[in-house]
């Protein structure tokens, strides 16, 4: 569960990125986070992943209180939150298999577990036949599937997708969104940050709209107005 309660975040340069955000995303929920550039979306993601601490208010993510989390607890928080980025952030020198296995090795998984889990996840995202390829040999959509596989492999309870379709054509975007919905159907909480109004409306999920550091819309009708 992700819960923000009256959260403010100010940067040292004097920018007030969040000005009293309150919202709650339940376990297993699917929500879109929308808003114009500079509205505070990235700050919300950074607060959820423990990159930032709130200036005031409370942030709870999967049992961790972010306002008082200790530095050495942050890696364990991050294991509960998988992140997918617009620019994929894959390691080009590693194969598809190793990009996913790398995420498991990074948290100290055993080789036997890796050998069992990675093929299963690659199959889930439809890359089972490309495990020996390198990211540069994949299409944009496939690279994003690989990024999703990596976010998913450690079995996080939440996935944050930051503009996951920003670099893809409409057909591939739809594929990726459908994949995220499938993953959500398996029980993973999904928070998708996007600018693509068409996609948001098409999926008819909960939409949280942010503008100038405030929640300006929170509804499940798939429609938002800014």
């Amino acid at each position: 569960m992700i819960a923000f309660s009256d959260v403010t975040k100010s940067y040292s340069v004097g920018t007030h990125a969040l000005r009293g955000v309150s919202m709650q995303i339940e376990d297993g929920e699917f929500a879109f986070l929308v808003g114009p550039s500079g509205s505070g979306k990235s700050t919300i993601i950074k607060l959820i992943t423990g990159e930032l601490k709130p200036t005031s208010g409370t942030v709870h993510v999967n049992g961790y209180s972010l306002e008082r989390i200790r530095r050495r607890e942050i890696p364990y928080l991050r294991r509960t939150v998988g992140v997918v980025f617009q620019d994929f952030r894959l390691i080009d020198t590693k194969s598809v298999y190793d990009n996913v296995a790398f995420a498991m090795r990074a948290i100290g998984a055993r080789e036997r577990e890796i050998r069992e889990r990675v093929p299963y996840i690659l199959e889930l995202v439809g890359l089972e036949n490309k495990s020996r390829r390198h990211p540069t040999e994949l299409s944009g959509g496939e690279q994003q599937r690989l990024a999703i596989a990596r976010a998913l492999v450690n079995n996080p309870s939440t996935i944050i997708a930051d503009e996951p379709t920003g670099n893809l054509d409409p057909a591939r975007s739809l594929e990726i969104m459908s994949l995220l919905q499938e993953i959500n159907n398996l029980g993973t909480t999904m928070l998708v940050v996007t600018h693509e109004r068409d996609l948001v409306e098409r999926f008819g999920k909960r939409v949280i709209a942010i503008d100038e550091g405030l929640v300006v819309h929170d509804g499940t009708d798939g429609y938002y107005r800014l």
Partner: protein
Amino acid sequence: MKLTNLGYLIKEGIRGIFLHGFMSLAAVVVTVACLLIVGSFSCLVYNVNVMVEDLNKTNEVLAFVDDSLTDAEARSIGTVINQIPNVHKAEFVHRDKAWESFVEDHGNDPAFDGVDPKTTIRHRFVVTLEDNELMKETAAQLESITGIDKVNAAYEIARGFSTIKNVLHIASVAVIGVLLVVSLLIISNTVKLAMYDRKDEIAIMKMVGATNGFIRLPFVVEGFVLGMVGAMIAFFLEWAMYNALVEKLTVVDTLHLFSFVPFTQPELMQTMVATFVAAGLFVGVVGSWTSIRKFMDV
């Protein structure tokens, strides 16, 4: 961090060396260059120290024996002198022998015509010390021996040698320290460049929840291996350069003004191995440990 991951992390560290071959080569070359400078200076300091020690040993104390003692009684004092802890060697010089060498030095001086050595020159002991810094105390102990009439000791010269030794010691520690810090900064910068190359990899590891220790270890292993390889290459290069230099200097130095300790002399060899291993480890491990800190705040 689980112990089962240790093998993987060490393998990753070694894989990183080959994966980023050019940066690894640069780090090794920089380490070798820095360690060669540190090593050459250490060799120089070691040799100068040995030379100063040797010169210091030629600074002798003269203990004159009481005129009233017979030759046998005078010689027997040597046993007592040799029991003083700081005495390295006490050599008895008979008054006739002392007179001979005096005449050798001043034979043509008419001022000494008609001088009777028996009434002018005394038996003496030429005493060399273990530590000339304790010359004053040892001279006092010699003077207190029954049968020793007077002691001549060049305290000023001993103090001079002591000062030279101390200054050399402080200067060498300071210069080696500065060279090590410079090496560390250069290595650290080189490793930082290597890490910059891999900042995305580090960011991904942080993002998926890797602990700092897990992220650091491969880089530290890499730094350790690079530091040790650099140290080994530098050590053998230093050895070859040292031998070549000593060979050349021995040919040039016809007056034998300098005496160089062979590189294979156990004490010098041990000092050099210790210096290179410690410096290699220090610059490799500390260099990578400190450089990675910058990339951990993701």
